[in-house]
């Protein structure tokens, strides 16, 4: 299974879509959003707030990209090829999920490093560690949703759904514009999304607050839902392979 993860990582490195969406875009957007039209006192707030938002946005994009790659793999006969190796199906899924947990790291690391080195964000070590850990572990539901889409839909459809889900979750979840500026009905909606919950956990740490259990519960519920969807998609794909 480690061999499988190594192979998938080598493939991701050569995927321009991943390099752009999973690293370049979130870092560039972070630097733009925090340095254009934001002045004075607001800069410090924005540098920290948007750091979590963009790290989350990049991680979600990477997680989706990894999962929907499954659709391409299926079309290419790669999943069938894996089925005629001694690897058990569950090892293949675990390997793909493990890859998902690794490919989110460049976005998180890239944005956090830009914040520290270029935007002068200063946090305690435990805060940095907690933020990175929460952003990393919290990306699992999105990896699973990506897998669900990848197993359920064919290449083109999966790619479109990937981008659509990514944008909807980013916008409604308040990753591009903070949910604080939303009209009240949209804000109410935003609080139920996995992307809001995901970013909110790390954001609370960043601003020295305690993450809410309600938010953690919402993200956990999404984890279960997306996990079940991934399982359903995998079973269905297995029958059709």
């Amino acid at each position: 299974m480690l061999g499988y993860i190594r192979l998938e990582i080598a493939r991701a490195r050569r995927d321009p879509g991943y390099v752009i969406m999973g690293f370049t875009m979130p870092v560039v957007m972070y630097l733009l959003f925090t340095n254009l039209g934001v002045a004075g006192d607001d800069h410090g707030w924005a540098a920290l707030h948007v750091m979590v938002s963009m790290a989350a946005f990049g991680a979600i994009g990477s997680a989706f990209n990894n999962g929907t790659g499954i659709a391409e793999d299926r079309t290419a006969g790669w999943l069938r090829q894996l089925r005629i190796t001694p690897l058990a199906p569950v090892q293949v899924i675990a390997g793909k999920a493990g890859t998902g947990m690794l490919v989110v790291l460049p976005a998180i690391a890239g944005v956090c490093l830009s914040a520290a080195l270029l935007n002068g964000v200063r946090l305690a070590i435990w805060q940095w560690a907690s933020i990175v850990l929460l952003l990393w572990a919290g990306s699992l539901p999105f990896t699973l949703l990506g897998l669900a889409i990848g197993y359920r839909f064919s290449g083109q459809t999966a790619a479109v759904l990937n981008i659509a889900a990514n944008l909807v979750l980013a916008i409604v979840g308040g990753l591009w514009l903070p949910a604080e500026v939303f009209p009240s009905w949209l804000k109410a909606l935003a609080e139920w999304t996995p992307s809001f919950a995901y970013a909110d956990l790390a954001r609370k740490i960043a601003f020295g607050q305690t993450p809410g259990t309600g938010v953690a519960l919402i993200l956990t519920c999404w984890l279960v839902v997306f996990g079940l969807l991934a399982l359903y998609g995998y079973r269905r794909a297995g029958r059709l392979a």
Partner: protein
Amino acid sequence: MSRAALDRWIYLGSRALRSVFRMTNDVVSLKNVTKRFGAVRAVDDLSLDIPAGQTVALLGPNGAGKSTGIRLLLGLLAADSGTVRVFGGAPEAAIRSGRLAAMPQEGGLVSRTTVGELLGFVSGTYRAPLPLREVMAVAGLEELAGRRVERLSGGQAQRLRFALALAGDPELILLDEPTAALDVRARREFWESMRAFAARGRTVLFSTHYLEEADEYADRVVVIDRGRIVADGTSREIKRLVSLTTVRVTVPAPETAWLELLPGVTSVEIRGDRAHLRTRDADTTVLALAEAGAVRDLEVVPAALEDAFIALTGVDA
């Protein structure tokens, strides 16, 4: 327990034991396997046993059920009825243990990897793989280790698929139309590699619609048509089965009825002073002719496997 009952127990027990051993001797065992796709029976009540060490060709026209049969043997498809056994167990178990490997007809080469990476990964999934260098050499990939998979030519891609199937040093290898995309030279090279593999006592099952491949490389040819086996034997036996070998001899006398009584002969056709005898066993027919002193201008015209194929399936391959 009476003596008779004891005898019966011993008889039944030994028979069960024998059948168990026979089962484990057969590397592949299909029993009354049927697979439908909608109304079409892709595989129709098919039974086939393959003992260890044989090289078997699954010969049939397109749509005969060859690929479906191979996918059933790999556990990629489940049979609607009947049993599929590989090494006496489920195909999945044979794959898991590394004893069964396969080369799909197409696909399976994932993009954004190099030949070396892909082969190294697949090799690493086996407990006792062949050394990578050996696999590369057998498949003729030494020069291509760093090449990206999507930049391989058709023949190179096929050699990589073959290498992936060989990597775990399987005891049984299934090849679905392995040479379909290859030119004549690549085809010959491929079969040389295949022969080297089979020579180590491995069992090979390959599907093909190239008759000369079945004729030349298989110990046994299973002709399949519309999901059913229509002939099974060596290519020589199959040709004989449809009695297509023709013995031609010049016979002076006008009466020729005796020719029809010769051993092996199935039909006689007289063209001028030449008798064309269709025979299922040319050797004995010729011997009988010799005993009767009728050997003038005798010639034996062997049937092409192709003729047998057409006769058996009614399809012009």
